[in-house]
């Protein structure tokens, strides 16, 4: 058969040793700076020490009271009673003073050094005046009479919150702020800047179980208003809002993707903006149009697997929203409408994204019904210590509670008779409630974390778990104190009985001694009467003492028994914690996996980007090279064009040169003719004097040739026939062969040379076939020019020969042309 005790033993064995024992620190002790964990632990140590000191003070007071009662019982006179009272008072004050000093010293340990420093810095800022305020003035204005130099302006530290929490526990959360201020001043002996009271009040109230969400109905509204203003001034940015902003900035890209997913890829820009505004609030207004469009552009480029992931995240968000709603429903069970809950959530800095109102309302209904079921379950099993209703009926009580009552093992808790198991159960209930809040807090942390690393999640969770476990181990201590108190009462009873027995025995001894002496009959009778009376009382006292001893044994037994019960309950509770913790652990592992996957993907993208960048760089280089090449090509083209232009210009130059030489030859002939005519005129003038009536003879001048530039007659080229070079050669050699032979091979050499450089038109001349006359003539002129140059270089050539040859060339060309055409 499966034994659940074995399971518990196993669970208990799995508790790390450093966490289980009470009073021992499981925290690291090295290092200067206190971690959050250490600070919390230290705060608890302070709280425990102060509690112990308070108990010592109460014990001293109890002893004093018991002595005063004893003085009355033993028949002390007024002066003796006064002596006892004075001694007791002196003793109690001494203890009180020492406890106060010790408490202060302990508190000073926790107080941060920087506060003292700040206070010192602030003092000169007040004009250096450290004058004590007039008490009368202070009383008149209703302010504290504590000197101003003691005024602190602290941050809300843990010590003050503890004090504040104690005050709220004692006097209720509906205490007015005025009363709260007074109580804090009385308790600490220090005056705190007024604007901090409000924050302190809120911070302390937040730590009081069942106080969250309750309004301060009793605070005067008129008084509250300026305080609220002060609060707003002193706390321009509330923590939840900061937290909210941080979360938004972290996940803005993610939210944008969600928005795109919700609206669809084809959603309008206005739709996107509207949805985004609902999710991140006014933050969108601070974004430029470019930032917004970039955000949506990024969000729209969603790859398929990521889209799936985001869909999963939407589901996850719905689940988280449900958890959040459940948490708020548990904390505010009085809320019955979804709208009201949204308002409360918003007040506390949570802006639930209620894209689908139906979803939210169904969540609310479900959470509400769950909470009601849970509440019913709890009310059937335990009695809450804060409950003002009657204790459970006998029929409803668990069997062990009835047995405890039968045993007369009932304790007095705030005027109610409660059995120890009920008491423990109620504490467990409180603890469970605290842990529910913790769980809620962890859930909230998960809300805010989303994509953070496992380390942060695990750290937060472990802190909550350790704290809870520490609270669990306090319960046995509570039970121990409870039984110690009972045992103490029994011991006092026994001691008192024994003291009285001793006293009576002494009296009996005295009576016996008196009886031994000579006594009258009356005296003897009186002695006997006194003896009987004392003996009777002695018997009674012995009975009381024996009963006390028996009761003490019972208490000791009970103590052992309940210690065992507590331990079992602690094991059970630990198992419950483990049960609650494991899904969170799993979730944290999931998150870690998710984180790893995201990281890998990010690395993959990063590598891709790097590769693309290198490709871009290569392409840029190639582009540059290509551009240079293209430029080169352009330049080449330009050069080619220029060269063509130059060749054309040169050929035109050659033609012009040819025409010029023609004109020059014509001019020379004209000049000759003119000279001839001038000579004739001169000879006529000298030979005969002219008669006055003589009429001049008609001019005998005839033009030698008419200049007609060939370039200006392109049509002529078409009209002129093609001639074979051979024919030209034959005609040339027939007419001019004696002076200059037409060497066709030399002519071809010149043709090739000139055609490749300055006269491309000579390419058209084919020496073996026919060619236009014009080009053959051009070739001939070039040939003759070359011959002239060659001869000139040889030195066997005069300008006369040149002139002669040039004339002959013209003559030959004209002759051949005439022969060819005809």
């Amino acid at each position: 058969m499966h034994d659940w005790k074995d399971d518990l033993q196993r669970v208990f064995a799995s508790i790390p040793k450093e966490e289980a024992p009470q009073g021992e620190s499981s925290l690291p002790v090295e290092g200067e700076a206190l971690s959050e964990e250490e600070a919390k632990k230290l705060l608890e140590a302070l709280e425990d020490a102060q509690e112990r000191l308070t108990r010592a003070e109460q014990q001293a007071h109890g002893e004093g009271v018991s002595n005063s009662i004893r003085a009355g019982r033993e028949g002390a006179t007024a002066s003796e009673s006064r002596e006892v009272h004075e001694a007791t008072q002196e003793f109690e004050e001494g203890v009180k003073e020492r406890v106060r000093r010790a408490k202060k010293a302990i508190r000073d340990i926790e107080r941060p050094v920087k506060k003292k420093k700040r206070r010192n810095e602030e003092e000169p800022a007040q004009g250096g005046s450290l004058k004590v305020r007039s008490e009368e003035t202070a009383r008149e204005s209703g302010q504290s009479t504590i000197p101003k130099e003691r005024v602190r302006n602290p941050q809300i530290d843990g010590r003050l919150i503890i004090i504040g929490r104690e005050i709220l526990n004692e006097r209720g959360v509906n205490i007015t702020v005025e009363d709260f201020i007074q109580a804090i001043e009385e308790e600490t002996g220090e005056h705190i800047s007024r604007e901090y009271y409000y924050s302190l009040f809120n911070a302390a109230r937040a730590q009081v179980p069942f106080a969250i969400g309750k309004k301060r109905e009793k605070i005067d509204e008129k008084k509250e208003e300026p305080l609220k203003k002060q609060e707003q001034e002193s706390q321009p940015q509330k923590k939840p809002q900061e937290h909210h902003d941080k979360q938004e900035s972290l996940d803005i890209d993610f939210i944008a993707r969600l928005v795109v997913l919700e609206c669809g890829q084809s959603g309008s820009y206005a739709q996107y903006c509207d949805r985004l505004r609902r999710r991140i609030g006014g933050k969108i207004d601070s974004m430029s149009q470019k930032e917004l469009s970039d955000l949506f552009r990024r969000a729209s480029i969603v790859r398929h697997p990521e889209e799936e992931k985001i869909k999963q995240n939407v589901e996850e968000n719905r689940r988280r929203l449900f958890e959040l709603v459940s948490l708020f429903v548990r904390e505010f069970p009085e809320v019955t409408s979804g709208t009201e809950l949204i308002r409360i959530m918003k007040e506390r800095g949570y802006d639930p994204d209620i894209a689908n109102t139906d979803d939210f309302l169904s969540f609310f209904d479900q959470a509400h019904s769950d909470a009601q079921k849970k509440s019913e379950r709890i009310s059937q099993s335990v009695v809450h210590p804060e409950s003002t209703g009657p204790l459970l009926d006998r029929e409803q009580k668990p069997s062990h509670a009835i047995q405890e009552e039968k045993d007369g093992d009932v304790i007095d808790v705030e005027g109610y008779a409660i059995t120890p198991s009920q008491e423990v159960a109620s504490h467990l209930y409180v603890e469970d409630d605290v842990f529910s809040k913790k769980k809620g807090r962890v859930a909230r942390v998960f809300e805010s974390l989303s994509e953070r690393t496992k380390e942060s999640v695990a750290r937060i969770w472990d802190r909550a778990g350790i704290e809870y476990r520490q609270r669990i181990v306090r319960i046995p201590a509570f039970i121990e104190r409870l039984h110690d108190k009972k045992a103490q009462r029994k011991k006092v009873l026994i001691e008192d009985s024994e003291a009285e027995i001793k006293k009576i025995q002494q009296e009996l001894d005295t009576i016996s001694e008196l009886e031994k002496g000579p006594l009258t009959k009356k005296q003897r009778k009186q002695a006997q009467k006194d003896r009987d009376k004392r003996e009777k009382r002695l018997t009674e006292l012995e009975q009381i003492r024996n009963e006390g001893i028996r009761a003490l044994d019972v208490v000791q037994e009970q103590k052992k028994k309940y210690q065992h019960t507590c331990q079992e309950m602690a094991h059970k509770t630990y198992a419950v914690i483990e049960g609650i913790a494991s899904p969170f652990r799993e979730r944290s592992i999931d998150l870690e996996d998710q984180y790893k996957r995201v990281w890998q993907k990010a690395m993959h993208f990063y590598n891709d980007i790097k590769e693309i960048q290198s490709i871009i760089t290569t392409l840029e280089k190639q582009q540059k090279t290509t551009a240079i090449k293209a430029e080169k090509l352009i330049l080449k083209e330009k050069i080619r064009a220029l060269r063509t232009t130059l060749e054309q210009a040169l050929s035109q130059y050659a033609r012009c040169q040819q025409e010029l030489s023609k004109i020059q030859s014509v001019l020379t002939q004209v000049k000759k003719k003119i000279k001839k005519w001038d000579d004739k005129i001169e000879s006529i003038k000298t030979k005969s004097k002219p008669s006055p009536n003589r009429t001049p003879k008609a001019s005998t001048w005839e033009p030698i040739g008419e200049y007609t530039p060939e370039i200006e007659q392109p049509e002529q080229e078409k009209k002129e026939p093609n001639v074979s070079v051979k024919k030209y050669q034959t005609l040339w050699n027939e007419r001019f062969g004696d002076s200059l032979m037409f060497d066709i091979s030399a002519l071809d050499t010149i043709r090739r040379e000139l055609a490749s450089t300055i006269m491309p038109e000579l390419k058209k001349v084919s020496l073996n076939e026919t060619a236009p006359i014009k080009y053959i003539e051009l070739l001939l002129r070039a040939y003759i020019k070359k011959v002239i140059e060659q001869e000139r270089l040889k030195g066997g050539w005069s300008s006369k020969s040149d002139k002669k040859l040039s004339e002959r060339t013209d003559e030959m060309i004209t002759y051949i042309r005439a022969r060819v055409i005809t």
Partner: protein
Amino acid sequence: MTYKEKVSLIEKIESECGKEIKALTLGYRQKILKIFDRVRDRKIKELKKNILL
């Protein structure tokens, strides 16, 4: 101060205070005992007187 130092200081303060309270309690108890002894002596004297009368 480190966490350990702070905790040990708290313990020290608590222990010192405990010692002082213990000393005060002892003194007080002696004082009270004397008063009660006186009361007892007086009562026995009264008893004797009463019996002898």
